[in-house]
């Protein structure tokens, strides 16, 4: 069965016999190709004259032998092939593939490169959001320049449509926090302070944050997908050559829409969270009126406005990141998906980091 191979000094003869069908090819591939490789720069003769039939894969084997020998710099001769077969096998030699880039010891330069790329991205994102904010101010001063239809559509999607899920999540989180907090407070006999904690935690922090996370998942991703698709279908190019600025045309209405709806949504989310926090209190016989009264007494307007302000900032950042990600969409089948993922991940990372920064800022300002 196995091919008959004779090696003399500097010359290898590989004689193939019988049927070279798919099964056989698989059996002899390693062996034959290995021998061709072993011939190095010597000469190799492949004798196919005793083959009854050569299948498609058989020709591929012959081509592989030829390629191996030619690239190693050796000489090859094929005997016993029809003219068509010979020309096919000859063609398959092709170009030498590029040598794969050296993989080793690039760790440090890779880390450096990545760090620079991340910084670049960050600077670019900040610039983009800044420009979006300027466009926003411009649009508010000249409302006629605005794409009202896009604005209203996105307001509907990011506001009304998001309401149920945002409030539900916020309510559950409120419930969990109150429930987990009560035993700890009980140790100090301070379980009746739960409303105070809920007021601070939900209204200043979690209401806006949960709203923003849902916004990143729903609207940030939608912006990236919509604009990314327009990029792929050349609609963004069409806008550009029509003299219509894609930033103003696509980004402004979307960012403005979420900048309007998110603070409102955040107020609802906070309320739902506070309500959720009341549920464990039922067991302690605290009435809703008393609970809300306590929450109300624990916070002031500044706390409330702080939450609303945060929601506004988060909205602009998430909207900006989503749109930017869409506009940066590359070509190719996975490009829109990649942009969408990037929008969500970058959006969530950005708001959480930003939240930390804002906490520091408010602290420094003594708010």
């Amino acid at each position: 069965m196995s091919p008959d191979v004779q090696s003399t000094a500097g010359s290898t003869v590989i004689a193939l016999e019988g049927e070279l069908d798919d099964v056989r090819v698989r059996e002899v591939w390693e062996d034959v190709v290995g021998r061709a490789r072993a011939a190095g720069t010597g000469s190799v003769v492949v004798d196919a004259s005793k083959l009854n039939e050569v299948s498609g894969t058989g020709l591929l084997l012959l081509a592989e032998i030829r390629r191996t020998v030619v690239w190693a710099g050796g000489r090859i001769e094929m005997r016993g092939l029809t003219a068509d077969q010979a020309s096919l096998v000859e063609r398959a030699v092709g170009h030498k593939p590029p040598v794969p880039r050296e993989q080793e010891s690039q760790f440090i330069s890779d880390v450096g490169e990545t760090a620079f790329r991340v910084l670049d991205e960050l600077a670019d994102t900040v610039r983009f959001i800044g420009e979006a904010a300027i466009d926003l101010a411009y649009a508010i001063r000249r409302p006629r320049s605005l794409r009202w239809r896009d604005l209203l559509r996105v307001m509907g999607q990011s506001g009304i449509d998001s309401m149920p899920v945002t409030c539900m999540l916020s309510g559950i989180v409120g419930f969990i926090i109150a429930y987990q907090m009560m035993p700890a407070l009980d140790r100090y006999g301070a379980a009746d302070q739960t409303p105070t904690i809920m007021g601070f935690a939900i209204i200043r922090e979690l209401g806006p944050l949960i709203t923003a996370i849902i916004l990143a998942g729903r609207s940030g991703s939608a912006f990236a997908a919509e604009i990314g698709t327009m990029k792929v279908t050349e609609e963004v190019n069409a806008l550009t050559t029509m003299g219509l600025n894609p930033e103003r045309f696509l980004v402004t209405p979307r960012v403005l829409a979420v900048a309007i709806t998110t603070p409102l949504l955040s107020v609802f989310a906070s309320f739902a969270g506070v309500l959720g926090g009341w549920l464990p209190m039922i067991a302690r016989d605290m009435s809703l009126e008393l609970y809300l009264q306590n929450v109300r007494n624990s916070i002031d307007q500044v706390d409330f406005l702080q939450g609303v302000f945060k929601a506004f900032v988060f909205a602009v950042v998430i909207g900006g990141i989503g749109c930017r990600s869409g506009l940066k969409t590359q070509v190719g089948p996975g490009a829109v998906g990649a942009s969408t993922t990037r929008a969500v991940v970058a959006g969530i990372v950005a708001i959480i980091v930003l939240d930390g920064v804002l906490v520091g800022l408010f602290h420094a300002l003594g708010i």
Partner: protein
Amino acid sequence: MLTTAASTETVIEAKDLSVGYGGRAVLTGINFTVASGEVFVIGGGSGCGKSTLMKAMITLLPPVSGTLRITGHDLVTGGDEAVQQVRRSIGVMYQGGALFGGLTVLENVRLGMEEQGLFTWTEMNSLALSLLAMVDLDEHCNKMPSALSGGMQKRAAVARAMALSPQIVFLDEPSAGLDPISSAGFDQMVVRLARSTGRTFVVVTHELPSIFTIADRMVVLGGAQKTQLAIGSPKELLESGPPDVRRFLARQPEDETSQGAAS
């Protein structure tokens, strides 16, 4: 064959032009002029740089070097101002149509006019309808683009490209994805629009039937160095162009042997 339009005003001028990506030229040595009212075809095999050249002309890609003047504005030295000017004087039909999916066909055509703010609402609507009638789509004016066939989308895109009275209309691969009959119909429409409106049309295509139907003159790109092989009317080039160009226009592939020899 069609005769060249009487007017000799030059609307596009390329001199020693190189175009490419990120400062690296993929196409060099481009020299041609396009006269007002001409139908000018950019032809050549796949990957020879037709789309790249077109992107440079429609201001989406800065030229690498040389001169590229569109309606008198130099895209190499003119900076942002020239880019804006050129955008005001061109209309583009993108390969897939690139209609805005959220707008109806009529709104697509009207959009540029709305932003321009020169016309009243009624005027814009009737202008858009007339444009759509020119491409036989007036009865579909209230449909969404997704409800149109590929060929209809392209025709709507031509109407949109002509909406702001551009001096030059660019068409990117108009026949791609169309059946032979629709494709021939499209060619006829292009000729009709060019003759009736006197606009200059620049068409990127490698479809030979299209080239012979519509082109007053053409430039053929290609070669190992990716450059301009010839310029002239398709008929001239078929009869007396360089061998490569004659082969392209006569639809003969390169010699089997010469291809095999390349290693």
